[in-house]
């Protein structure tokens, strides 16, 4: 049998994953280094009966995918740095109105136009807090081409299941690199669709959550004739100024993620059993962390790695356990210490924290992590 192995780019794997997950609509606007996602979506979607549109800007792209999702299509947009900033307005809308959708951000160096073709991870905090107000967020960070495929599917599944926008927080290294992948058969892939109402139009309350805190979602055109708004609303979906109802809504939006966080949170750890030192990294930097760990282990240094796959919600519980037995955490990231803030909050003073930061547009090299670790040995 011929091998299914092939060379694939990260951005291409994202589209392949999206289509496997059932994406039927993509709206985007060209921006490096995410443009290939739009280009490949434009080519592939019509082949599966799906639709692509290049909107006039990133704000409109975000709006269009929300509209398409309400009308029943699994939808995605892709962007980078400046475009991600523009999407925040309607990303907040999707959070409040609980509209499933996937937002890909292939991070590049910033702020502002920055270094458009260079890798960075400076949007970790923006992914969490970019839109105004408290809002629920799930953000996934792939560190290989195959994982980009898998996590794009997961992004759609989580989005559909929890009625929340899901951010696929890539970086230029993973988005642009090509590597050997073998994709699974479609029949092996689990696909989750949003739950639809089982009651009649008269009885349908579009924002009345079930016990799992998630309300069933009708499609426009199904005859439910329901209202969706970005204003605080009650279970009927209509605006309210009632403080008790507004409070209940805002808390439920966060609680629905909190309640299910064990199903959402994912991380990978290597060689942590006997590790004195654990390198924490995400995305493209994890590739350097793996090399650094292997080289240090050869020298007899007990190093492990911890890689949040869901950067939001952050895999906190396991990190607290590790903090009890690890001496030093090394947080390596292509920014000036965003994930380190979260790690610091979680580990408190239980272990030492060292940062490896780089924002010059180059990848963090394994040697730079090794050097930093050898300094503290």
């Amino acid at each position, binding site marked *: 049998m011929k091998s299914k192995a092939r060379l694939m780019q990260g951005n291409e794997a994202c589209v392949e994953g999206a289509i496997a997950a059932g994406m039927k609509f993509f709206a985007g606007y060209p921006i490096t280094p995410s443009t290939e996602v739009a280009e490949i979506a434009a080519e592939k979607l019509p082949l599966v009966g799906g*639709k692509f*549109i290049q*909107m006039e800007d990133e704000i409109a792209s975000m709006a269009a995918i929300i509209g*398409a999702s309400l*009308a029943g299509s699994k939808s995605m947009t892709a962007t980078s740095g400046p475009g991600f900033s523009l999407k925040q307005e*309607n990303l907040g809308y999707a959070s409040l109105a609980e509209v499933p959708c996937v937002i890909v951000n292939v991070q590049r160096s910033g702020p502002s136009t920055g270094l458009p073709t260079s890798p960075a991870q400076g949007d970790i905090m923006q992914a969490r807090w970019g839109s105004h107000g408290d809002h629920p967020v799930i953000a996934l960070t792939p560190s290989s081409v195959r994982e980009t495929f898998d996590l794009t599917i997961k992004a759609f599944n989580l989005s559909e299941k929890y009625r929340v926008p899901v951010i696929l927080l890539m970086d230029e290294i993973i988005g642009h690199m090509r590597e050997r992948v073998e994709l699974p058969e479609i029949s092996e892939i689990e696909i989750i669709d949003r739950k639809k109402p089982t009651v009649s139009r008269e009885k349908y309350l579009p924002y009345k959550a079930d016990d799992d805190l998630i309300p069933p979602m009708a499609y426009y055109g199904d005859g439910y*004739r329901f209202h969706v708004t970005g204003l605080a609303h009650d279970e009927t979906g*209509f605006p309210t100024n009632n403080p008790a109802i507004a409070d209940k809504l805002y808390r439920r939006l966060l609680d629905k993620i909190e309640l299910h966080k064990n199903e959402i949170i994912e991380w990978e750890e290597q060689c942590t059993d006997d590790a004195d030192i654990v390198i924490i990294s995400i995305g493209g930097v994890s590739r350097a962390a793996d090399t650094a760990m292997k080289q240090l282990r050869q020298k007899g240094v007990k190093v492990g790695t911890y890689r949040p796959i869901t950067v939001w919600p952050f895999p906190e519980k396991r990190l607290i356990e590790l903090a009890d037995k690890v001496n030093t955490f090394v947080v390596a990231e292509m920014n000036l210490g965003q994930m380190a803030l979260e790690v610091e909050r979680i580990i408190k003073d239980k272990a030492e924290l060292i940062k490896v930061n780089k924002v010059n547009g180059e990848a963090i090299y394994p040697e730079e992590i090794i050097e930093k670790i050898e300094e503290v040995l």
Partner: protein
Amino acid sequence: MPSAIVSEYFRTNKLPQIWCPGCGHGIITRAITVAIDKLGLDRDKICIVSGIGCSSRAPGYMDFDTLHTTHGRALAFATGIKMANPDLKVIVITGDGDATAIGGNHLIHACRRNIDITAIIYNNNIYGMTGGQYSPTTPKFDKGTTAPYGNVDKAFDIPALAAAAGATYVGRSTAYHTQLLISLIENGIKNEGFSLIEAISVCPTYYGRKNKKGSAVEMLEWQKNHAVNIAAASKMAPESLDGKFLIGEFKNSPEPEYTKEYQKIIDMFKKE
């Protein structure tokens, strides 16, 4: 007792609406439902989308699938809805600030694509929801709370803008000229492509008071006395049109519709 149209097409449990006494928006909203009724459309296949502002509260009162979006973005949301389900009749309700200031870019591109959406712009010449700031359609030298000495901006001519940007059906009417408004909306919905109808409203609370335009009734009378139908205007002497404004059907030139054109690509390339 609400009228038959109101009972049929409005969410009567959400009434009364939030608009000020004398506001023209109620008349325009009713005109939309009358047009829908006359066309005999399947109401479960109609989606009404709005942005932010006084006008954009209208869909909340209308018994269809309705979407109240973010400021200026209604047309972009509507584009996604129409793309995902072209069987839906998508109607956008927006205001002068919503559609031509913050949403100006979305407006010209929706026109350019000729996507089958009917946009009705409730033009009250002012930002009402925030208390009377001047908008892109506030006439030059008129006042707003942010133009205390008179507005130095030139106003947009919305139908000219839409026609130039590629809308295939364009018309204008007023809150006073309701029969014309209803027929323009009917024709707009019937047009397979992007239709834009400017509905000139009245805002006695902010625009009217700031600019000494009198009561709502006086403002409607002004509309009656100053509007000239484009069909009649062509036969009138130019000087008799001084100080008047045109209403009527300005453009009706169907072209291939966006989602249908895209469907051709799918039909050509889709793999079974």
